[in-house]
């Protein structure tokens, strides 16, 4: 087994900016000289459905997909989506969850209930220290751009990848966004990193 390869699984709902976030992680790793691969699905899978992105980096990466039980960090941009991929998490791995609910169709229609106590479930299962809840929408609003939830999440992710300096993240982030939203996004990144 190639233990040097680290795997992140980003999950959420179409439109949350997950693919941009995973692109940025990849670019940061590439700048650091790592080999990196990422994988996601486009097309039919995008229309309000689940979106996942696997990001893997290390000295040499073969598979762009992580296997179950081998992911170091699950980052869920939506609360209940965190539950869908828990079998991917490595023992002792980290779960970062954005505190935002987006109802699936059956919940909208009143046919199913949105699961309750998600954070408690996660904490009981993985331990308090391995579950990080981020108030994404609140922090993005505070940064001055409600759409910057993905950047808030990037900030939080960055804190748990100590081998990469904060400035390296910000450099790639700033170069990946249109100029007029850079400032708010850098702020969102800071707030996410401090969360």
């Amino acid at each position, binding site marked *: 087994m190639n233990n040097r390869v680290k795997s992140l699984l980003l999950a959420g709902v179409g439109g949350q900016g997950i693919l941009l976030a995973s692109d940025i992680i990849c670019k940061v790793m*590439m700048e650091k000289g790592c080999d990196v691969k990422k994988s996601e699905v486009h097309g039919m899978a995008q229309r*309000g*459905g689940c979106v996942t992105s696997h990001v893997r980096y290390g000295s040499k990466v*073969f598979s*762009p*997909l992580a296997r179950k*039980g081998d992911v170091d960090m699950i980052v869920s941009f939506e609360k209940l989506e965190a539950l869908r991929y828990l079998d991917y998490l490595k023992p002792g791995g980290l779960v970062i969850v954005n505190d935002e609910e987006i109802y699936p169709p*059956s919940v909208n229609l009143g046919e199913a209930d949105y699961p309750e106590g998600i954070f408690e479930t996660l904490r009981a299962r993985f331990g308090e220290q391995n579950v990080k809840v981020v108030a994404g929408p609140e922090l993005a609003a505070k940064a001055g751009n409600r759409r910057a939830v993905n950047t808030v999440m990037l900030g939080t992710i960055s804190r748990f990848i100590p081998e990469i300096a904060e400035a390296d993240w910000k450099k790639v982030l700033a170069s990946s966004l249109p100029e007029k939203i850079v400032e708010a996004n850098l702020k969102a990144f800071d707030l996410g990193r401090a969360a």
Partner: protein
Amino acid sequence: MRELMSGNEAIARGAWECGATFGAGYPGTPSTEILESFAQYKGVYAEWSPNEKVGLEVAIGAAFAGARAMAVMKHVGVNVAADPLFTVSYTGTNGALVIITADDPSLHSSQNEQDNRNYAKFAKIPMLEPADSQEAKDFVKLAFELSEKFDTPVFLRTTTRVSHSKSVVRIEPQAPLEDRTDIRHLPLKYVMVPINARARRVEVEKRTQALREWAETFPGNRVEMGSAEVGIITAGMPYNYAKDAFPDYSYLKLGLVNPLPERLIRDFSAKVKKIYVVEELDPFIEEQVRAMGIEVTGKAVFPYTNEFDPGVIEKGVTGKSSAPAVTLQAIPPRPPNLCPGCPHRGLFYALNKTKAFVSGDIGCYTLSYMKPLAGMDSCICMGASIGIAHGMSKALGPKAKGKVVGVIGDSTFIHSGIPPLLNAAYNRSDAVFIIADNRTTAMTGMQDHPATGYTLQGEKAKELDFAALGKALGVDSVEVIDPLQFKNTTEVLKRELQKDGPSLIISRSPCVLLMSKKAARAKHFVTDPDKCIGCKVCLSCGCPAISWKDFEKSGMPPRPERKKQKGIAVIDAALCTGCTLCAQLCRQEAITREDG
């Protein structure tokens, strides 16, 4: 320079670097970004053709003229292009012709899971299969070279994971361009009447033999010796999964999957004790290796269906998984859905109410088969809706009266709906045909087509007029409606269903994603909690912006004046586009546009 690229971007880059100047095709996940990306390079010609057959024929023409041309399509697109495919294998290419097929193991965005490596063998065309973005770029260049060297079309096969995963690619400059185009009259080679085709048929076999020989020393068919205990024969993305799971085994990684290098396979097999063939979908390599008399393990332990990952390989080889057993709690599924404000919602809501059999087609609107819209009864392939509706109405005879509808999207109609509509007019169908015209190829990400008025490279084009076309094909009754006008949509449907003979309804309203790029959003709608009686009619149109708020669960006080009411509908202002459909459905006038 190193750059992070998807397989699709890398293919476009590689084609451009090696002097390919011509690309044609039809959008289809996971292939779409190849042509979109190629079209951005300077000095190339790239077009969306109406369908893959036309796209391939256009590329054949360019190759006959001496250009380096590619035809790009998803796996099922090759079915559409199969007719020219099998014969261009005989004629050869003069210039270079590369056909890119993007297969979709796991059916992420497709109606079937066919393995197009079979086409390579069937049509006697060499096929290269890259495993990552760097190889995608290298192999497309090689494909053009091979095509010229052996006077043959060449397949480049990707799968969704190759096309849509990103990895690091070394960027190179474009090779010096050389114009080799000219008119060359070669009727014995290009006029495939029987006498000429018989002669070319022999050439195809000679060519295949020569390619077999070439494959024996092709560096892309690579041996990586590790442990002599286990050898793995593999190609494409599954190579990465196997290397990830078992880095210490020996590998024969095939870059060319048709034809196979027999001596190389025999040599490799003689060096290892046990051999696995790791390939997704069909036992394409496995069966051929077995036919060489070599004992291998393949589909006995690896699945026929779905894409693999490293865990699948591990389980196949060891019989068990190293992942900790985790039971997931049951959570509500999150299927893809029509967007808030999608005009298809109005059409399919109305269709559901007609109780007709709705023969559907391929596009976003296929999602309307799901509850609560439940507005579609069948979907087979691009263009099938019209023929199926016509056939059904003929077979049912009088029982079909007012009960059979065929619905097809604008891009899909152009792709392969025109001959079936002509047929329905010619053979006097009684069905109603609807073009769900949202002014774009929405599902694959907003590509232009002949009715949008623009080409792939942004040139202004002549706009196809669906109503005039319908009349010209022989349909006398042609109506244009706005599907978001619910009352009118219902009335027109009712009227046309009662008519004798074929009717064409053009249900026209632009895709909401297209609108969001162009115009400011309309003001959103809100429900009036005092007027809402909790009847759930608005919820029945399945709009993601509307949700049910249960009094008890949400802690809202119940209504003393309406004891039976259990809750109210609420509209998410951030999602609502102001399309007005739900407001038209609400009989209580409880849904109104937000003031201010």
